[in-house]
């Protein structure tokens, strides 16, 4: 019988961590793009676009992520597309992240005083010009801390993709447990690795918030 040293366990967990990080990045960047589109629709003059954005946001915020993963995984196969777990995982996580970031960013856009919109429209700027040159640069500043904070949720959410069979840190933990029969050690290390990924993000979000608040007070 093969014996496994603790180093074997940690090494293999770290190998799988790459996939957790990659999936988090894909979900965060893709979710950012989705959120930007949803944000533009949500704050636009067009009523249908606004409704559609609200529906998208409510749908993905109002149902469990695990259900969304299952629906993507099995739903796309139903229409005859064979979906590998990584694709279903990436798609579901991107849309889930987008729905949350869109609401976070909407709060930031709405925190910009009305006068800024009025001033820029008095300069004959179109909606997109107003967004691009006046509102977004200011909103971006207040958006940084909550966005970094939400990235922690994204990293943790990737753990759920193990359930539809995507091999990342959580799935690897289960597989290694099945081989080594040391669940305490394996899940303990997995938790520590997640902590090492998430804690710096949480902390920097807190620090950024404090820093930007100080700047705000001095202005």
């Amino acid at each position: 019988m093969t014996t496994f040293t603790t180093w074997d366990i940690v090494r293999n967990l770290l190998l799988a961590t790459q996939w957790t990080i990659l999936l988090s990045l894909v979900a965060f960047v893709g979710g950012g793009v989705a959120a930007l589109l949803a944000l533009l629709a949500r704050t636009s003059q067009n009523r249908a676009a606004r409704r559609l954005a609200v529906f998208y946001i409510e749908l993905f915020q109002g149902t469990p992520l695990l259900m969304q993963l299952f629906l993507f995984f099995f739903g796309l196969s139903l229409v005859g597309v064979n979906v590998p777990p990584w694709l279903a995982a990436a798609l579901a996580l991107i849309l889930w992240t987008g729905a949350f970031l869109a609401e976070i960013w909407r709060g930031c856009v709405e925190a910009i005083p009305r006068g800024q919109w009025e001033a820029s429209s008095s300069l004959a700027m179109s909606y997109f010009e107003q967004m691009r040159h006046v509102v977004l640069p200011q909103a971006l500043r207040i958006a940084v801390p909550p966005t970094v904070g939400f990235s922690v949720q994204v990293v943790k959410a990737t753990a759920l993709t193990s359930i539809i069979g995507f091999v990342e840190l959580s799935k690897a933990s289960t597989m290694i447990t099945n081989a080594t029969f040391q669940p305490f050690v394996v899940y303990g290390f997995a938790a520590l690795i997640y902590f090492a990924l998430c804690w710096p993000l949480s902390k920097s979000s807190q620090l950024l918030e404090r820093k930007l608040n100080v700047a705000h007070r001095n202005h």
Partner: protein
Amino acid sequence: MAVGLDFGALADYVPVFVKGVGVTVELTVVGGTLGISLGVTCAWVKTQGPKLLRPVVSLYVELIRNTPFLIQLFFIFFGLPSIGVSMGEMEAAILAMVINLGAYACEIIRAGIEATPRGQFEAGASLAMSRFQTFRHVVLRPALQRIWPALTSQLVIVMFGSAVCSQIAVEDITFAANFIQSRNFRAFEAYIVATLLYLALAILLRQGMRLLGTALFPRRRAAR
């Protein structure tokens, strides 16, 4: 391949879903009640309690808030038995939910306590109340009222998170959907129904918390 939805195929499995809803409600109600109690206790320690305990609570909160619920659940259900602490899947699921919610609720409730005006503490002290009495009778209720919406949202998040408990064979809504799709291969239909059930439960939970809020905090306080 014929493509089509057939919700009729689920008709035989209604009792499975009913049981699933019952288990999810049980997890949410028991886990929610105990979790919020734990959160109140931890918030008390962090703001008023013994200074020695504060780093312990901080460590607990940071550890839980920065690791996925799935790993916490697996650690409790699969990991703890190897050091001699074993429990059934339902107990493990509820324990994981309590520990998870406790950490988030602690931070939320702490924010509510810290927003209490100094005068409230001073008024309590001037009535010869002990620090604990002041906390219990003066500070806690308005603090909870302040953060009630945030606590409600967190409870909904925890209910959605409970879907993961199906992975340790807790027979909740997700487990029901998994079971049904393994029998009749109608995966998409089963998960759509499960998703709608979660959606309905979330709406009910929000309404329930609103009612509980009006019962707990009868006086409408004027905005300060």
